[in-house]
């Protein structure tokens, strides 16, 4: 376990070395959230609420969705693809740790870094400028914390899956790009899932993507109440468990292939 904590720490320090990231990053996130705020205000017009969300809840939803993205987002799919292409992964097999676990921990180091230097101060600044509601209930915060940890897990699993697929394609860039687009749309980052037409919502219930952004953001804005919260968290847990299967399967096949081909 110690070695994985060390990975988190190293990645955290690496991120800290690039300081221009925060100044520019916070500014740009603020512009982003600001633009969305006005866009949604215009969409709401005179309507009090759409699909059960008021305009203030909607703004909060967007702000928290972007800030949570800073935590769960990482580029490990691209990194894995790069390391596979450069043949570095073969070396990783002989190291005394699980490669995918190590990548996950690096992602976590990045996430914790961005959460503390980016999301929390960013959220504070944004809440001064735009009308955003924070819940007073401790339980909401607790559930939200759980939800973003799970959202990190699910998003990272999807990244691992895309990354490992590089073993089977010559060039994986297209798939990685497509995945990113799909996640932006179906995770609920751009639009709450409840805004989609009914049939689309039903389809998305069978896909893992809403575990990434929609669920934590809805919990934070208290768009989910009572039993819906538990159901949402269960949804995340179930997907986090299911996704282990294809990752492990692909990893084992990839390993075999690597041994046969000798890298």
């Amino acid at each position: 376990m110690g070695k994985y904590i060390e990975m988190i720490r190293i990645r955290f320090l690496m991120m800290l070395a690039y300081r221009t990231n925060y100044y520019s990053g916070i500014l740009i996130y603020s512009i982003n959230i600001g633009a969305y705020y006005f866009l949604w205000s215009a969409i709401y017009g005179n309507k009090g609420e759409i699909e059960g969300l008021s305009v203030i809840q909607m703004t909060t939803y967007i702000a928290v969705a972007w800030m949570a993205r800073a935590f769960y987002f990482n580029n490990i799919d691209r990194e894995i693809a790069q390391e596979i292409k450069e043949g570095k992964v073969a070396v990783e097999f002989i190291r005394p740790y699980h490669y995918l676990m190590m990548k996950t921990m690096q992602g976590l180091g990045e996430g914790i870094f961005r959460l503390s230097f980016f999301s929390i101060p960013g959220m504070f600044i944004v809440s001064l400028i735009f009308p955003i509601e924070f819940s007073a209930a401790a339980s909401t915060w607790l559930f939200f914390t759980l939800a973003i940890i799970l959202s990190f897990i699910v998003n990272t699993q999807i990244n691992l899956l895309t990354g490992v697929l590089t073993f089977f394609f010559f060039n994986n860039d297209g798939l990685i790009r497509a995945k990113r687009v799909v996640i932006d749309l179906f995770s609920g980052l751009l639009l709450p899932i409840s805004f989609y037409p009914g049939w689309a919502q039903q389809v998305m219930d069978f896909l893992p993507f809403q575990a990434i952004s929609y669920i934590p953001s809805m919990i934070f804005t208290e768009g989910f109440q009572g039993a819906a919260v538990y159901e949402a968290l269960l949804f995340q847990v179930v997907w986090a468990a299911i996704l282990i299967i294809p990752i492990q399967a692909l990893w084992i096949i990839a390993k075999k292939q690597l041994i046969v081909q000798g890298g």
Partner: protein
Amino acid sequence: MKHATIFFLYVSQYMKTRLTYRVDMAMEIMSDLLFQAVNLIFILVVFGHTNMLSGWSRDEIIFIYGFFLVPFAIFGAFFNIWDFNERYIVKGEMDRILTRPVHSLFQIILERMELESLFGMITGIAVMVYAGSRLDLTLSWYDPFVFLMMVIGGAFVYAGIFVLLASISFWSDSRTSIMPMMYNIGNYGRYPVDIYNKVIRFILTWILPFAFVGVYPSAYFLGREEWYGYAFLTPVIGFAFFGFAIFMWNIGVTKYRGAGN
């Protein structure tokens, strides 16, 4: 003349390499299409809940999006140098570029081009035709020429912003997350700027003038006369921004520190 021959040589080399990896190329075109669809879906879903966006109809917003895709495709094909810092500064490839007798930015554009992006022009024009026919827009004989100017202006706005951001790498080689975020900001120029407050409107018009790659030039074709002033500024802003970016790039090259220092 010489630049044109070199350009076509690069293009033919590019085609040769690309055609050897056909699956990749198909994947890339598919992911571009998917990306274009996502934004369209966003608009459609939003207009499932409202009829007007501060006085602009669904079809008008779709038309703006269609227009946006055309200059964006040109930008994507030639000026999309978001990984300049990583590839050329950190890895030291800039050294090689600087030992060749062609302008450094021109060489980088040729090496980094992704002609697949040009398919976006077709999507864009198709979207415009669809929205335009629903809006009963009519074309004058000179409109295609105006369109061409607007598209070039818009592409130069994007190119100017990205070249400027790439030039920062000459002064500071620390990685920044600005580049990927610029794509998001670029999206806001596709909505009528009157929905934003003054600060954001000012930014989108004069600082990061993405509004000139979407709503302003489209306003001309949509016959929204109150925006004509801005619409006709599009090529001016495009050339001014791109010119300024090249100027900064040239200064940046003299500040280049080389790799590994």
